[in-house]
């Protein structure tokens, strides 16, 4: 580890990373459709003027308060600015060992935790490379860093709720997580924003040897909002990751989730549910990057499109030369509810080793009217029958999730679907 950083103020290090990212943001152009990943989402069609560097100074001071709810669960509310906040729910004993660091109101860190925080930020800056991720890293005013010490096992997930009620300035809800070795832990990241907001965030998670990690990112953004999320997971030896993301609402949601399987026998399961309605465009990319031997990965993505909604799923399995005995799968199923809605599926493989098992598949279908007849002939109203088929379609993903992620996320997206049904 770089001991020089210990001598420096971690604040200064982070501000340095912000400055480099700000410069990158200024010098770079918005991604264009010439780049394969952006071929179907042309930013020229969107008003990107809300994505600007913050005018606020880096050392904005946040306030912090602990509250206890009726069930005895404690929450840590960090009021980042007058318009944004992060609420972290720590729900059980043992969670007092979790380190939560927020650059806008720093606590004293010990030497090793200082290195970890610095590395999380530096790795993210080195890894993410487009103008939107540079913007996200240009300020840590809304960021939260979490360190899970080695050997910690938590049954209930840590819930991190990012919320912004102002569409005026870009909202940068970054989350950095270091998961120590031999741990068991779950995270739910919820990003909520008001109408017309411009959101760009990164999630950087490093999973230590033998860690068992469940993550979920659920976005709940206001209408006319644009949101970009870059997510990166690095898995060490024997690490297990189950990741879920759901995307619905807003005008444009563009996410990129990359998993590096860097240690032998690492195992990553990526699940995603996309629900696009009205004129929403949801563009999701996943990359299962196999860099070590004997790893397993699987992506299962389902999307539902309605009205003029559109979803794009781009999935890549990339296997490096040294990653023999890779076992990797990718499936995408889309349900199109009406003419005019559209779902695109672009799976691809890049394989540099012959001793692997990889496959991908995708389907796009409509609701079968014979299914509707079947259900209505048992007394179910037509609208409810459609709802049941849709829920059934998605539940095959939900049923694969850990209970706590399932119950939390399913409610959110089902509520969203129901709201949309009632409106239409």
């Amino acid at each position, binding site marked *: 580890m770089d001991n020089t950083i210990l001598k420096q103020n971690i604040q200064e290090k982070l501000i340095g990373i912000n400055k480099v990212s700000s410069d990158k943001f200024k010098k770079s152009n918005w991604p264009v459709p010439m780049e394969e990943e952006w071929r179907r989402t042309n930013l020229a069609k969107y008003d990107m003027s809300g994505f600007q560097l913050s005018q606020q100074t880096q050392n904005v001071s946040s306030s912090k308060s602990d509250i206890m709810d009726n069930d005895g669960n404690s929450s840590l509310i960090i009021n980042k600015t007058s318009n944004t906040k992060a609420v972290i729910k720590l729900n059980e004993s043992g969670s007092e060992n979790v380190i939560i660091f927020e650059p806008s109101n720093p606590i004293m860190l010990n030497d090793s935790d200082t290195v970890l925080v610095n590395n999380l930020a530096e790795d993210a800056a080195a890894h993410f490379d487009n103008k939107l991720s540079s913007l996200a890293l240009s300020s840590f005013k809304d960021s939260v860093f979490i360190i899970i010490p080695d050997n910690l096992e938590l049954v209930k997930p840590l819930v991190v709720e990012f919320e912004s009620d102002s569409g005026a300035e870009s909202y940068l809800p970054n989350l950095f997580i270091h998961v120590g070795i031999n741990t068991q832990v779950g995270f739910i990241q919820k990003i909520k924003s008001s109408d017309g907001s411009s959101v760009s965030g990164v999630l950087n998670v490093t999973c230590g040897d033998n860690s068992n990690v469940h993550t979920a990112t659920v976005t709940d953004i206001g209408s006319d909002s644009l949101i970009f999320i870059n997510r990166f997971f690095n898995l060490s030896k024997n690490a297990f990751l189950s990741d879920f993301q759901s995307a619905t609402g807003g005008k444009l949601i563009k996410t990129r989730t990359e998993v590096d399987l860097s240690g032998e026998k690492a195992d990553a399961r990526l699940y995603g549910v996309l629900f696009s309605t009205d004129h929403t465009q949801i563009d999701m990319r996943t990359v299962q990057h196999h860099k070590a031997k004997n790893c397993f990965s699987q992506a299962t993505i389902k999307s539902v499109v309605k009205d003029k909604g559109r979803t794009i799923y781009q999935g890549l399995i990339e296997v490096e030369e040294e990653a023999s005995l890779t076992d990797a799968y990718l499936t995408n199923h889309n349900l199109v509810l009406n003419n005019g809605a559209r779902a695109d599926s672009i799976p691809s493989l890049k394989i540099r080793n012959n001793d692997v098992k990889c496959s991908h598949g995708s389907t796009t279908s409509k609701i079968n009217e014979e299914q509707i007849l*079947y259900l*209505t002939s048992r007394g179910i*109203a037509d609208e409810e029958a459609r709802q049941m088929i849709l829920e059934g379609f998605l539940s095959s993903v939900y049923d694969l999730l850990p209970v706590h992620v399932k119950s939390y996320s399913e409610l959110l997206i089902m509520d969203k679907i129901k709201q949309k049904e009632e409106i239409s």
Partner: protein
Amino acid sequence: MQTLTIKNLTAEVDGKQILNGINLEINTGEIHALMGPNGSGKSTLSNVLAGHPDYTVTGGTISLNGEDLLEMSVSKRSLAGLFLAFQQPMEVPGLTIGKYLKRIVELRLAEGERMNVSAFIKDLKSNLDTVGLSHDFINRYLNEGFSGGEKKRMELIQMMMLEPSFAILDEIDSGLDIDALKTVATGVNKLKGGDFGALIITHYQRIMENIKPDFVHILYQGRIVKSGGRDLVDMLEAKGYGWVREEFNIPEEADEYQRTIAS
């Protein structure tokens, strides 16, 4: 007593007239069998009763206790007490049988009435036992990956859970072996009584050995050409549908159906 009355019913599918004036009255407490060769209009009749949008009624009436059934939506017909067992039940992935059955039973509760969930589960388990399906089916997705026989049994489970006034069992016996047939008959016989009437649509005589119908009707070229008691089944067994054709002076073309049956 409740009554399902079909009068002078004519119907077409894809512009082709299939039903040429059906007259039939079924009361609760009665089991009717409707027999006829392939293409005689059996399935058209059940689809029309269910309200399948591909089938157009061109004349006549169907009433359920005096109410116009043809004016009711598909779901309303069901809530009014009509049940159709499908020839080919649909698969609904992701929808568990437990959740589905609970919902359709719940839809029949009186306003303000609360569902007794433990009684529901007890009923469901007992019905699964009756048709010979394991209790694991409660958590399986509706009809997904079921064998033909399991799907038919699941139709019966639904019928037993809903306790309709009238059940139309469209070829519930097709593709079943002897044991499965007996199971189906057990299911129907379980409901048999004063509050339940059924129309068993089939072109096999076999199921009649286990479900004893009170009335038997023979459908030929979209008309009920003969109605009678159980002795009609024996007559068909002995003489085949050719006898019907001869008796009613139906032109030769109908022999095609006869050969289909024979094969």
